[in-house]
């Protein structure tokens, strides 16, 4: 028998979604239609075909053009998008989605279950490295009829309901791509999705223009007529563009953090750290576990005690974000803070260093070349480490050099941040499991940490069923890692989105501005 958390739950989900997504507005006033929104995009995306390119800027623009089956509220609960309802069988291996009727692609063709099968089973399996890993748990994807899709899993896969975010599983049109060379298809330059906005023009180096999809499947939406994404390469100029009223929204990371407060203090200016719950960017120092003093657990613990992470949060990140307790972000499912804590305590750090007999070997620190904020942060960390007697040499690189050094494990300490994608199996496991130790990528187990117990816990937790079973495995995992310190966790980042206060309902889902401006409207 199928466990029906489907229709009633879905109905409830629609209702809660409707209230959750428009709650502030619904109480205050009705959304107004019309208007043009000007937004900063940086850097310029290499392409807008979300199935082929998944980097940040692409997601931010293309999240308006493409859609997936589900969206997620800020507590990471699924809400309907292209799927209106879903049900799962008792052992968590068969998921059946009911698709919305009357949805069309931007070229007028109907969107059907065949598109879902093509997107997930054919297109993205070839082009999407992150989704590919999750799809390995799936036995088959079938279209039962035009509006019903069934995913059959090889075994229960805990994060399954979390892989339907638009950047993870964008729906791509079968009638355009079937049988073509996906990556080099000329159609990639004129992206066709089902989303609230259509691609109109792209003046490279200047702007990208999207226009309202008049045939959008949600009655009365979207509210905006047009969106202009302005390409402005210099951070100070982006701040000026906002200051002079040329743009309405500065998405997270658009301006240097020390500029945030000044811009927020302007008239009619608001800021929010929300909209990063799904990604939950978790920043840490890679610690090369293979070599030198870093191979000693006590050295890594000493680093944790030496770091004044509250200072970094308050001063460098304007108080936004949270100090992490371990590998799992507090925004991500199965987070547990019942683990060893590392408050700022230079004396404990010095004691640990003395106990292990640290000989003063100089450590190379690789900052993340993403602008001033990260540079300042690296300087703060160096100072913290020097305070307890660790000699630090800064190594300057550009992004490509940073990639190369991490790929080849040519570093001692290095800054990074990774997304968690709502579930430890998706965004956390990859950093700590030993099967992910491989040269050539800066996003796997770069630090070279190998622990059979941890491997077992992650493997079992991914497929354990139900959630309670997963929780206990993940709790144990977090306790072990917080003792071992394979990497030094720095901050749960919240990138501030700065916007004019008369822009309403801008950020109301777990992926923030990346979810498109389907609900946004201008109170002007």
């Amino acid at each position, binding site marked *: 028998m199928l466990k029906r958390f489907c229709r009633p739950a879905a109905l409830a989900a629609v209702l809660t979604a409707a209230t959750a997504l428009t709650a502030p507005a619904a109480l205050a006033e009705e959304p107004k239609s019309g208007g043009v929104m000007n937004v900063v995009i940086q850097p310029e995306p290499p392409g807008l075909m979300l199935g082929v390119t998944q980097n940040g800027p692409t997601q931010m623009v293309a999240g308006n053009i493409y859609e997936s089956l589900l969206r997620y509220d800020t507590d990471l609960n699924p809400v309907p998008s292209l799927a209106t309802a879903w049900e799962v069988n008792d052992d968590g291996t068969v998921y059946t989605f009911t698709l919305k009727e009357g949805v069309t692609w931007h070229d007028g063709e109907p969107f059907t279950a065949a598109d879902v099968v093509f997107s997930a089973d054919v297109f993205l399996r070839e082009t999407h490295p992150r989704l590919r890993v999750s799809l390995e748990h799936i036995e088959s994807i079938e279209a039962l009829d035009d509006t019903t899709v069934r995913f059959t899993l090889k075994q229960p896969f805990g994060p399954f309901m979390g892989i339907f975010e638009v950047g993870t599983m964008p729906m791509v049109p079968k009638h355009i791509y079937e049988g073509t060379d996906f990556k080099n298809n000329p159609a990639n330059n004129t992206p066709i999705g089902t989303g609230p906005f259509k691609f109109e023009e792209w003046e490279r180096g200047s702007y990208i223009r999207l226009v309202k999809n008049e045939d959008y499947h949600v009655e009365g939406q979207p509210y905006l007529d047009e969106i202009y994404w302005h390409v402005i390469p210099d951070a100070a100029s982006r701040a000026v563009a906002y200051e002079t009223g040329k743009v309405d929204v500065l998405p997270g990371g658009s301006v240097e953090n020390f500029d945030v407060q000044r811009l927020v203090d302007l008239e009619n200016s608001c800021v929010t750290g929300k909209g990063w719950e799904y990604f939950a960017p978790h920043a840490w120092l890679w610690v090369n576990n293979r070599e030198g003093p870093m191979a000693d657990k006590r050295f890594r613990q000493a680093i944790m005690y030496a770091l004044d992470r509250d200072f970094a949060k308050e001063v460098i990140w304007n108080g936004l974000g949270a100090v992490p307790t371990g590998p799992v972000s507090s925004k991500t499912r199965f987070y547990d803070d019942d683990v060893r804590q590392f408050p700022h305590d230079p004396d404990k750090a010095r004691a640990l260093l003395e106990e292990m007999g640290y000989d003063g070997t100089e450590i190379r620190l690789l900052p993340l070349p993403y602008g001033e904020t990260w540079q300042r942060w690296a300087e703060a960390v160096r100072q913290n480490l020097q305070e307890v007697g660790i000699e630090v040499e800064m190594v300057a690189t550009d992004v490509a050099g940073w*990639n190369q050094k991490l790929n080849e494990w040519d570093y001692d300490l290095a800054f990074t941040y990774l997304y968690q994608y709502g579930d430890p199996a998706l965004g956390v496991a990859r950093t700590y499991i030993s099967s992910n130790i491989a040269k050539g990528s800066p996003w796997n187990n770069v630090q070279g940490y190998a622990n059979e117990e941890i491997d077992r816990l992650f493997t079992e937790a991914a497929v354990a069923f139900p959630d309670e079973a997963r929780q206990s495995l993940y709790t144990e995992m977090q306790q072990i890692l917080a003792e071992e310190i394979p990497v030094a966790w720095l901050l749960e980042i919240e990138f501030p989105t700065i916007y004019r206060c008369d822009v309403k309902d801008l950020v109301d889902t777990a992926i923030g501005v990346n979810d498109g401006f389907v609900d946004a409207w201008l109170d002007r």
Partner: protein
Amino acid sequence: MQKLSFIAKRLVKAVFVLLAIVVLNFFLIRAAPGDPAQVMAGEAGAADEIFIAQLREQFGLDRPLHEQLLVYVGGIVTLDMGYSYRQQQPVADLIFDRLPATLLLTGTAFVISILLGVLLGALAAARVGQWTDSLITVVALVFYATPLFWIALMAILLFSVQLGWLPGFGMESVGAGYSGFQRVLDVLQHLILPATTLGLFFMAIYARLTRASMLEVMDMDFVKTARAKGLPPGRITRLHVLRNAILPVITLAGIQAGQLVGGAVLTETVFAWPGIGRLMFDALLQRDYNLLLGVFFVSSAMVILFNLVTDVVYTLVDPRIELK
């Protein structure tokens, strides 16, 4: 006739120089750490080895270096600059899309700087030791010594943020839908700040150079003779001094003209001007090999071309110079 054969010979030489530059650039770029596949994989936020291998294969980076070089040079010989896999467009399209913007900006700055620079330099030299001279020298020194991006930012703060007279970024008002004369006006407005900022730096150099060169010529015997003949001072300055002092200025102008296509990375970045300089800078950061090589190729060709033009201009200004 002699001139034409000189030019023909130089053009033939230029082709070989260009080829040498292409090969050199090819290896230089690959000597930098990191490759485009790594950068793109990094930007995707997550990548397995299959993904990176796929990218390398797509870019042809999995082939031996000499094969890659042969493919590239083979393309260049037929004027095919290759494909930017990152931007998913032919390199030639990307470059020629951006070229007009850069030429407009650097060309305007070139004209502003050379006219103002020579004028101010000549004025300072004619009034050497007086307050006009001191003022011009100080101004030139300030603009020469101040970093360009700082001047740019200050100009934006003053004229865009504080006074609100001029737009602070972009090449035209996005979404205004201007056409015809209105659009020209709009672009001109956007052009003022970046072109002036960029022009000021070169203006300072021209002013200093003109002044120094003129002072040197002023002491020469033929100038004394002209003065002794009782020629009016303005005529002496213009015809006898300036014309003889202008050669180093032409040399410098030739160098600046060669850089017109290379663009002005800083100015274009600060003012979000959609030109070649930014294209090149982005391509460098992203290790977009073909695109970067393409920009280098076009700008090297321009440098060679303008060297030739400069040589010809010398003979026009000073008939004593012969082309051989």
